[in-house]
């Protein structure tokens, strides 16, 4: 009994395999069509799943989507709070965190605004700045807004004196908005120019400064304990950074940072959660979403995603039908064979099972090939469009295999069932 079952199984395998091997040209056609279908399926689905992340990162070219401001009652963000907030931002998704300090400054008798910032970070949160010349690298090198450069005829390489300190202009910034009337210095230069802006006491009046070394980025500018100054918050609108900069231009404010721009590549929901966390954990900071960027990004990103989704859907449906028609064409060619086997006494079930076996083999081989080719396609898209690599999703293997086996199976089932229901004599006669 066991032996007969074994023989039957090996006979079944032999039938399926020889059918595939003998009818090589037809099988190549069928296999090719399954593989095309599987390639499109796995390629497009991989791209579709990767689009939100990739597109979201593209939208970061609009710059910061989250700003940190001093909370009500404080005139500036103290370095300790800044480090705390920084630690709360998801490290992998954060494109840049740029601190800013503002002061009024007179250049050639004209009033402008001097901004202290970290240039390496500013490049990431303001990728749209057009820099004529270069970004500053060394201390003493500064960027000058287009407006100022045009008014006092500056070009990259020129020296510029601000309040008796000499600087070298290395680049001219054009942004088309208020930055055009700013002078950008490194934070170190800024604090050297405005020593009164150095952080010495937290806004609520605690006089003990930060332990040295606890803050890494800003520790160099923290003064030893003992250096205190009065906080003057009665008249400053903390929400508007320019106002803050202007109203704190006196010497009486304690200072740290006026504004921190953050560019974080996460969804709006996650951003909302982030805002809530920072507001709760760091009372000295009021995080705000830049609605212009976040709201608009939501709208446009949703459109782009539904575009890719629909396009993927249409292509997949059409391709799958196309694969099915090819399979049907290949199978209906074998009507005679089916008729002959029925005339020899094969049951409908065994014929259907044999065709299902063939489609399983075709589906698996075609599907595997398709997964590989599809990944290559997705990789090419990602490299060309987004200049990034994508990770291989192992889940795509079972998914593609199941879909391609199902499509081939169904496509075979229809013509085979149709044929098995007809009298073998009629089929064999060719009518």
């Amino acid at each position, binding site marked *: 009994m066991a032996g007969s079952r074994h023989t039957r199984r090996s006979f079944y395998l032999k039938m399926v395999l020889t059918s595939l091997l003998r009818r090589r040209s037809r099988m190549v056609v069928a296999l090719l069509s399954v593989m095309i279908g599987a390639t499109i399926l796995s390629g497009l689905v991989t791209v579709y799943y990767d689009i939100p992340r990739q597109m979201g990162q593209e939208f970061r070219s609009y710059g910061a989507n989250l700003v940190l401001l001093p909370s009500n009652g404080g005139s500036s963000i103290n370095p300790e709070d800044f480090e705390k907030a920084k630690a709360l931002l998801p490290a992998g998704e954060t494109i840049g965190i740029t601190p800013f300090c503002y002061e009024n400054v007179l250049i050639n008798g004209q*009033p402008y605004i001097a901004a202290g910032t970290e240039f390496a970070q500013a490049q990431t949160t303001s990728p749209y700045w057009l820099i004529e010349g270069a970004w500053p690298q060394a201390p003493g090198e500064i960027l000058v807004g287009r407006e100022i450069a045009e008014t006092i005829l500056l070009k990259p390489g020129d020296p510029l004196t601000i309040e008796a300190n000499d600087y070298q202009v290395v680049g001219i910034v054009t*942004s088309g908005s208020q930055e055009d009337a700013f002078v950008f210095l490194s934070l170190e230069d800024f604090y050297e120019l405005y020593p009164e802006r150095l952080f010495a006491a937290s806004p609520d009046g605690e006089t003990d400064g930060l332990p040295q070394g606890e803050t890494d980025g800003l520790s160099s500018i923290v003064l030893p304990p003992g250096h205190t100054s009065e906080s003057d918050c009665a008249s400053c609108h903390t929400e508007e950074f320019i*106002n803050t900069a202007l109203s704190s231009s006196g010497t009486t404010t304690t200072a740290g940072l006026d504004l921190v721009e953050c560019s974080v590549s996460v969804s709006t929901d996650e951003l909302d959660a982030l805002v809530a966390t920072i507001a709760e954990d760091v009372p000295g900071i009021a995080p705000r979403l830049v609605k212009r960027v976040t709201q608009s990004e939501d709208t446009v990103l949703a459109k782009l995603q539904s575009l890719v989704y629909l396009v993927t859907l249409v292509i997949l449906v059409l391709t799958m039908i196309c694969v099915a028609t090819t399979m049907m064409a290949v199978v209906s060619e074998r009507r005679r064979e089916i008729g002959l086997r029925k005339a020899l006494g094969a049951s409908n079930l065994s014929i259907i099972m044999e065709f299902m076996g063939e489609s399983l083999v075709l589906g698996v081989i075609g599907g595997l090939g398709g997964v590989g080719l599809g990944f290559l396609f997705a990789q090419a898209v990602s490299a060309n469009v987004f200049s990034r690599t994508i990770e291989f999703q192992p889940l795509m293997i079972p998914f593609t295999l199941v879909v391609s086996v199902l499509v081939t199976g169904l496509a075979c089932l229809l013509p085979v069932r149709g044929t098995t229901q007809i009298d073998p004599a009629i089929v064999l006669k060719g009518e």
Partner: protein
Amino acid sequence: MFWRMVAGTLFRQSRKMLLIALTIALGASLATAMLNVMLGVGEKVNRELKTFGANITIVPRDASLIQDLYEVEGDEALPVSYLQESELGSIKTIFWAHNIVDFAPYFTTTVQVDGQNDSSISLTGTWFSQHLSLPTGEEVDTGMRNLRSWWEVTGAWADDAQDGSAMLGAVVAERWGLAVGDTFTVSGTEGRSRELTVVGIFSAGSDEDERIFVPLATAQDLADKTGLVSSIEVSALTTPDNELAQRAAQNIKALSQQEYETWYCTAYVSAICYQLDEVITDGAARPVRQVAQSEGAILEKTQLLMLLITILSLVGAALGISNLVTASVMERGREIGLLKAIGAYDGAVLRLVLAEILIACVLGGIVGYFAGLGFAQIIAQTVFSSDIEINSLVPPIVAVLVVLVTLAGSVPSIRLLLSLHPAEVLHGR
């Protein structure tokens, strides 16, 4: 005889021919839909990106941006220059007028609010949603409403015709405890004072939350500057910058006459700015790089993405069609062998089989083209809620593609069958 045989095949083997026509229709509809979507997507996405607001600002040439900063400080020492309100309509008369989606003038002044501490605040007059009748006979609706799609407004948007209505920033409203429907009094220059009614409170997530927005006439009246505006925001559909646009932005005079014309007649943001400068006296139009630059980047990425997806689907459709055609020709081996056995020339057989397949191909292609248009419209309607432009380039591309692919699928397999001996073929090899 030839056509009788062709007709015979088409009718008697209608199932097979239908399958071929169906596959070709599927492939053709896929190609049509994807090509139309790909060619039309740029314009659609460009329009969507307008939600990020204006990409050009016009300010008076000599005052430009410093003035804003001054007014925040309340220092009126510098001579302040303005643009003329009467020239606003000419924005819609420039070469690229059709690409101007929206524009809004702003008049910003500092006012004191009666009965409040720390009462100095920036008040901006603007067009919220203004209807313009241009001298050219054109009717235009424009205003700030479309340029601030991200504002969350409680209450309603102010009406331009209603003098004295005001929209308050959320921060100011909270500070002063004002709600929709409340009134308050502001005083501008030389003791001019007005009572304003809060019609809406907005949350903008920027320093605008600390401002009051009123109809343009109200603000001009408060500052005694009738007919003047301090800046204009323009939202325009633009083409992403290329090397020519960058050179033009640096120095227009360095362009040759031909380059200048190409540049002027392309919707680069710099060309539109240049044309705006021509119609607005003493105005300096500048691209807002945050919007203009990012727009270009996202537009290019989207188009490239769609291009690659389209290529994939075209290759898929092409392989699918030629694959099926090959299969159906191979299937007819016996028939071809029989024709040869009774003395048909190779050429005659080739013509016969090709004619049959091409008829199926043309029928399938036509059906597929229209089905594809349907798919493209479904996609455009669902995603962008507007029809996609039917590109006249698509039918020839699809026709050439389908015919080439059908020939590529059938000719080699027919030739293969013809090269065999009829006896072998008839015997089933």
